[in-house]
């Protein structure tokens, strides 16, 4: 710090640390949420698509697999969009 800094400090005072903290809190919470989903979900989704395809012709993105945690119980939600007949 020198004599010029003493004057410069008076002006711009945008505390960037608080921005850093806010951004971190958001991204860390988001990534922790993803972390808790089991890593078998993508494989499960792929195999489900294969089974359904034996009977109905569907695309990969027509099967949605999601795991939700509510307290002590986990809900596995399957959402399969069948094509129009």
């Amino acid at each position, binding site marked *: 710090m*020198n004599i010029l800094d003493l004057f410069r400090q008076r002006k711009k005072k945008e505390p*960037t640390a*608080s921005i850093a*903290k806010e951004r*971190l*809190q958001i991204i*860390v919470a988001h*990534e922790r949420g993803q972390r808790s989903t089991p890593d078998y979900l993508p494989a499960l989704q792929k195999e489900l698509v294969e089974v359904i395809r034996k009977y109905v012709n569907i695309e990969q993105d027509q099967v949605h697999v999601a795991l939700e945690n509510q307290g002590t119980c986990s809900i596995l939600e399957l959402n399969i969009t069948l094509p129009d007949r």
Partner: protein
Amino acid sequence: MSKILVVTSGKGGVGKTTTSAAIGTGLALRGHKTVIVDFDVGLRNLDLIMGCERRVVYDFVNVVNGEATLSQALIKDKRLENLYVLAASQTRDKDALTQEGVEKVLTELKQTFEYVVCDSPAGIEKGAHLAMYFADEAIVVTNPEVSSVRDSDRMLGLLASKSRRAEKGEDPIKEHLLLTRYNPERVIRGEMLGVEDVEEILAIRLLGVIPESQAVLKASNQGVPVILDDQSDAGQAYSDAVDRLLGKEIAHRFLDVKKQGFLQRLFGGRP
């Protein structure tokens, strides 16, 4: 009871090797027989920081492959009676270590040493995974900076799910936060995340705060662990961290700005 301690972070360049050298040396200074193991195969540097680079004959990979015995590969520290270093291989690639090989060496080390300090490579790949897999306790080295904090959180997730303790359903790895390169001046000016901010985000026990210090470079230049520079702020902060690791309750130091005189402020005195 011997303990395996991993020094890890995810991000590179935050001070893992400096910390491994300081903590390992600090444990030995307090009378515990300690070995520091470099897991950074291909990019070894612990030997340089410890000042034993010219005495490396056999390394970790040689022992894993049965090309040398552990006693041939262990390098005895010249300063401390009960401190040893096991260097990483410089010429092999990172796949040279296997889980079985690492387990065999660590089991053997646990028979002779009270503390086995594992210096993890950066990243979250094989080397870093092997360094933390068998750990009882982890020191997560973090800089007060966004990418380092995020990577540390990622590493905490891996410690909790991909370690041997997690896979076997044993008690989890005990996690410690070590905040390094801390600059209290910038924290007060609102330019740097403060210790409370990082603690709040990562939510693990704070082992210590190491101030950004010229002593660290000075020590690494000479191949002397910075903890042996007991006049320096960083050396003293590491010393406190070792005491806390051993269960002592010590107040945190070096969190406040040193008071500067009026003239010092005018003419740019470095704190």
